[in-house]
């Protein structure tokens, strides 16, 4: 429980600071840190494969794309303009409301009481599941990834007339 608390605290702190910072690069890096924290949570929960996959995908791949996007879309001059603060208060209120609702739901719901022992679900079992009952979904995901890759390339590489620079 202490490990969980530490992980949760660090993750939430990283995410919270990331969302508050004005510097996009710092925000992104802190968010990446929070993703690492989530990976740590997975490791703590015994989902080793998912943890490493999380690091590989989020820290290795998505973070790169995010950083590239940040660099490519930096405003040409000067620091970022100030956030319009009109939305901040209602935003926090809404977020708080959602948090309250969720917490209430979690605390008031009868949750299944598992054994608590680390489940015997290793990489081999995962592989058998993926290629057995979920083979169709795996193929669909592969197709989705391919399409997404192509779509992303097309979207990002399309050069309109207005792009004179």
């Amino acid at each position: 429980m202490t490990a969980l608390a530490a992980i949760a605290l660090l993750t939430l702190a990283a995410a919270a600071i990331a969302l508050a910072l004005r510097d996009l690069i710092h925000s992104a890096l802190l968010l990446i840190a929070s993703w690492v924290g989530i990976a740590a949570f997975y490791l703590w929960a015994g989902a080793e494969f998912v943890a490493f996959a999380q690091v590989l995908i989020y820290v290795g791949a998505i973070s790169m794309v995010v950083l590239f996007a940040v660099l490519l879309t930096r405003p040409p001059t000067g620091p970022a303009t100030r956030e319009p603060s009109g939305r901040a208060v209602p935003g926090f209120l809404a977020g708080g409301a959602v948090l309250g609702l969720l917490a209430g739901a979690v605390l008031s719901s009868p949750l299944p009481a598992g054994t608590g022992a680390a489940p015997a679900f290793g990489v081999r079992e995962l592989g058998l599941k993926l290629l057995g009952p979920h083979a169709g979904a795996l193929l669909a995901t592969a197709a989705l990834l391919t399409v997404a890759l192509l779509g992303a390339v097309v979207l990002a590489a399309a050069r309109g007339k207005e792009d004179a620079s």
Partner: protein
Amino acid sequence: MHLPVQLTWLIPALPAVAAAVIAAVPARRPGLGAGLALAALAGSLILALLALAGALADPAARLIHTFTWFDLGHGAIRLGWLLDPLGTLLAVMVATVGLLIFTFSLGYLRDDPRAKQFFCFLSLFAGAMLGLLLANSLLLLFLCWELVGLASYLLIGFWFQRPAAARAARKAFITTRIGDLGLLLGLVWLQDATGTLLLFDGGRGVLETEALGALAGASTVGGLAVSTAIGLLLFCGAAGKSGQVPLHVWLPDAMEGPTPVSALIHAAPMVAAGVFLVARVYPLLAADLALASVPVHALTVVATVGAITALFGAAVAVAQDDIKRVLAFSTVSQLGYMMLAAGTGAWTAAIFHLLTHACFQALLFLSAGSVIHATHHEQDIRRLGGLRRRLPVTCATFTIGMMALAGVPFLFSGFWSKEAILHAAHGWSVSALPFHVALAAVALTAFYMTRLLAEVFAGAPRGHGAETAHESPAVMTIPLVLLAAASIGLGFLGTPWWPWLQSTLDPAFQPEPGGAGLMAVSIALVAAGILAGWSRYGRLPRTSPEAADPLARIVPRLHRALAARLGCDELYAATFGRLCTALAAATTALDRSVWDGCIRLLAQLGAYTGLVSRETDEDVLNSGFNAAGDGLRAGGRAYSRTQTGDAHGYVWMLAAGFVLVTLAVLLGGVR
């Protein structure tokens, strides 16, 4: 080694398949197509020879092989193959002559860009013709018959860019169709009367005693025996195909095709189909001979038509100026002879003449083709002349063909076959008139052939084409020489002293004695014809293309009538053509006035109904829909105002919705 009758289908199939393959080979490789066609036909020839050997081993036995084509309600439609001396002999003839014509075409069409198609059509023609000859079912025969018609249409119209050729092809197709209508009707009637179309079927075929007796025994309109009526209908088809007088008009026009096609169509295969059909169904035609009380016998009609055709063709040929047209009318005339022979009961003589005629007529056509090829497509004999030195081989072969056709005694095949026919006509009990008509035609034939020979080869060249002529290549002359040899040699198969052919075809054949006097008469007539021709045309050769024909100087009106082919075409145009036009006009008028009126009335009614319906729609029904549509549009416009395009706004709505739903779930007590 004999061909098993089950494999008979191979003989027509080889050229037919070759035609299909040639159609698929690339057009830039005409040599490939020609080679395929030749190879396939050569294979067919070998197989036909084997089949002939099998048929000759026992002429009385008919080898048949029948098979089911498809099952119909009351029984199966059965087709079959038949190997007997008649069919196989003609198949060998068709394959041989066809092979020679194919070879000749190699040279004749060397420069034609569409030579591939030509060989494709030729192969199709040969396959259909062979199938026709070997069929044991009138239905199968009819199928092949129509295929032959199609192929001849394609071949005559091969140079379809020439309007004359296209017109000739149409004419040939339509004219023969008229005859084929009779044939088809005869087949249907026959099927209805006997329940089968198989020729020989172990006692149940239409040509066997049982069916023949039944057919001859029944009578129909006008007191005709059923067999007579059916036989005459079948003869319609034969007359159309073989160019007998009422339906002969297409045959001379078919000259528009390439010369090898003319040879193929006129000499051997195609026109022989009609004579072959008559010979094939001879038992049916002859079934009514025993009946005394019928108004007319079928064979009498056949003989009469044949005699008229023989004289008509010979007479018209006298006054024609186109080398191929002369030969075409000579073909008409010779076919008349054959029909005459068949009609007088000597169908074996008809086949004999068919064989010899196939050889010498093919020889004449191909020689004419050689002349035309050598003189750059000059066909008018008035512009030819003096070619005997420039085209020695062609001249020699043409002379042999001419002598065979004219019936020069003893050496040439035409003499013997003609003798056989004259003999039969002489012995015919019904009437002596056909015999005299035939004798007149003999003299005329000798006359016009002498004229043709003299005009083309004697004297001096009268045109540019003739002046620059040179002998054709070997691929063209070799078939000529071979055909010339056959034109001489074939005659000895059926001399009165050794009638091998006749007795082979008809085991019951008995040579009649006493032909010597008749032979002397015919020899004298031939000699007279030749002498007359020589005196008019050979002794004093024409000097210029414009000079008038000697005959025209003597009997100008007759010559003009003959040159106009006795006005048959004009007559048809004036009668049938006019009738058709009038009918069409009547139909149009009917269409315009009566039917159109009805339809216009209906349309008016429809329009009125529509008007009423529209009024109802617009005033009564639409108002409700309009109101609904306006409501929808207003709603849509109102809703579209919520589409701010602001992504954040959407997220806000999402969040609000989420909160609401969660609250509902939590407070609503969904447990």
